């Protein structure tokens, strides 16, 4: 446990070394929300966003989830850099088990995601409404679980790709697939309707339905916005499965690939 905390400390310290960069990124996310969402409000069919009141209110939870995704993914970039500079030799030589090291890295990626996301989530609360204590607890637990999964996914990619170029390409593919095949930017009901009408590929509709980003965004929306259907807790299963797969992948990659 102590070793895991040391790794978390190491990674959080590195995270805060880029504090002005982080401030810049969060500001950009907020600018996205306040500029893009307001403009889109006038572009999007009112029938599509009627139940959410405005596109701003629809988009704010989605943006929070994408912010969480991008920041939790940052740990992968650092681990990839460590691998290229062979700093991972040092990490692997430390007096701790590989499992402690892998768990520490996944955990710190998740915590970093939560820290980055908190101003965005707070913005949601201010403009959309505050959740109950129970709802807040559920939101935080689900988002943290998702952050751990994202962190695991990024670590698995980072240690499997030797070059920065390959890592960035893989990251781009994951970002665009998961961001655009989700309910982050447009309602899931619209994607399903387009799919039924044959205007959107069926496999991408399925991906949007099982995508943990969709589950997390819709969960926040259903807790914060009135008049939406009650949140189905079974959709949390998507997040749980996603996290379990990628936490295990990260551990496996760390133990098997780096030590080769």
């Amino acid at each position, binding site marked *: 446990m102590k070793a895991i905390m*040391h790794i978390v400390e190491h990674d959080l310290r590195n995270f805060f*070394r880029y504090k002005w960069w982080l401030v810049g990124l969060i500001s950009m996310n907020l600018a996205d929300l306040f500029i893009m969402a307001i403009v889109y409000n006038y572009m999007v069919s009112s029938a599509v966003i009627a139940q959410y009141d405005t596109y701003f209110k629809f988009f704010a939870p989605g943006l929070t989830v994408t912010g969480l995704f991008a920041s939790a993914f940052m740990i992968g970039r*650092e681990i990839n850099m*460590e691998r290229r500079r062979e700093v991972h*030799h*040092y990490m692997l*030589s430390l*007096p*701790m088990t590989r499992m402690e090291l892998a768990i520490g890295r996944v955990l710190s990626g998740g915590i970093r995601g939560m820290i980055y996301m908190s101003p965005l989530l707070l913005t949601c609360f201010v403009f959309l409404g505050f959740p109950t204590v129970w709802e807040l607890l559920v939101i935080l637990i689900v988002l943290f679980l998702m952050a751990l999964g994202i962190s695991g996914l990024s670590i698995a990619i980072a240690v499997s790709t030797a070059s920065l170029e390959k890592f960035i390409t893989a990251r781009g593919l994951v970002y665009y697939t998961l961001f655009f095949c989700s309910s982050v930017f447009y309602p899931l009901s619209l994607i399903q309707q387009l799919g039924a009408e044959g205007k959107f590929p069926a496999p991408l509709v399925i991906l949007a339905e099982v995508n943990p980003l969709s589950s997390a965004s819709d969960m926040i929306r259903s807790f914060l916005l009135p008049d939406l259907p009650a949140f189905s807790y079974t959709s949390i299963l998507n997040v749980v499965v996603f996290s379990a797969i990628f936490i295990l992948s990260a551990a496996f990659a760390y133990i098997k690939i780096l*030590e080769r």
Partner: protein
Amino acid sequence: MPSIIQISNLTKKFGNIVAVDHLDLEVEDGEILGLLGPNGAGKTTTILMLATVIRPTEGTATVGGFDIRKNPEKVRELFGIVFQEPKMLWVSTPWDIVNWHAKVCGLSTEERKRRVKEVLESLDMWEHRRKNVHALSGGMRKRVELAKVLVQRPKIAIVDEPTAQIDVVGKHRVWNMLRRLRDEGSTLILATNELYEADELSDRVAIMHRGKLLVCDTPKTLKDSIVGGDIVEIQLENDASAKIVEELKNFKEVVNILQVKPCILRLYLNKVEEVVPKIMNTLVKKNVPVTSIHMSEPSLDDVFAHYTGLTIEEAQKSGE
């Protein structure tokens, strides 16, 4: 002395390349073992296997009684490593790097603070402790890398090229620190391609070339093992006659004589300290006046050349 590390048949292959080839070696408790060889000899790969960073393809080693394959966690608790290239992210500061390392190695808060300050001061890094690593010179980064092990004081310290990029004054200071670490109870494995460094520091030297261990012994024994390794250059007042050259060849310790100039003889021999007085007596008896005499012992470079047929520079080039 009992062995703290027993390496047996240790092999590492990267695809078709055999980086370490069936290595058998023992490291004694409390010694400084110099692992000498050119770049690409397999020194760093051996170290990484011992430290359980990479897995051997074949063979194994026991470190402090623990098998590196079966008990890697126990093995890691015994080691501290100074890597050849400093392993640190460039946004970190020396203080953070060394302090965090000490924390991970289990030093108490009080002890950690005291040792970190003491070591960074002794390495002239205290003033630079808050600078980002990217603002430090190569030598300073190497000193930070070294500080980690000096603070840790591990049971076994592995130091890979400890004085690379460090200036001459700094080198001597680092050597003294490594000796002190040994005197305080650590066993040291010193991987280097600097022959003088290996000679200065090592209790025993293991020479590696192309993944294989060629020989391992004390520097003195290794030097003495070279037949005709000692060189004596005698300058005579007059030209040396063929008769006197023959006379000198009769000494059983003399392996060869080269007449560099008519009045200068270069003798390749063994046991220089025993035979030179005898040679001088002969020359005096034969009334052959001597102007000067110069003696030199073989260096580890000669030992390396003896076993590989290459100087270390040539081996370095052929390995690149």
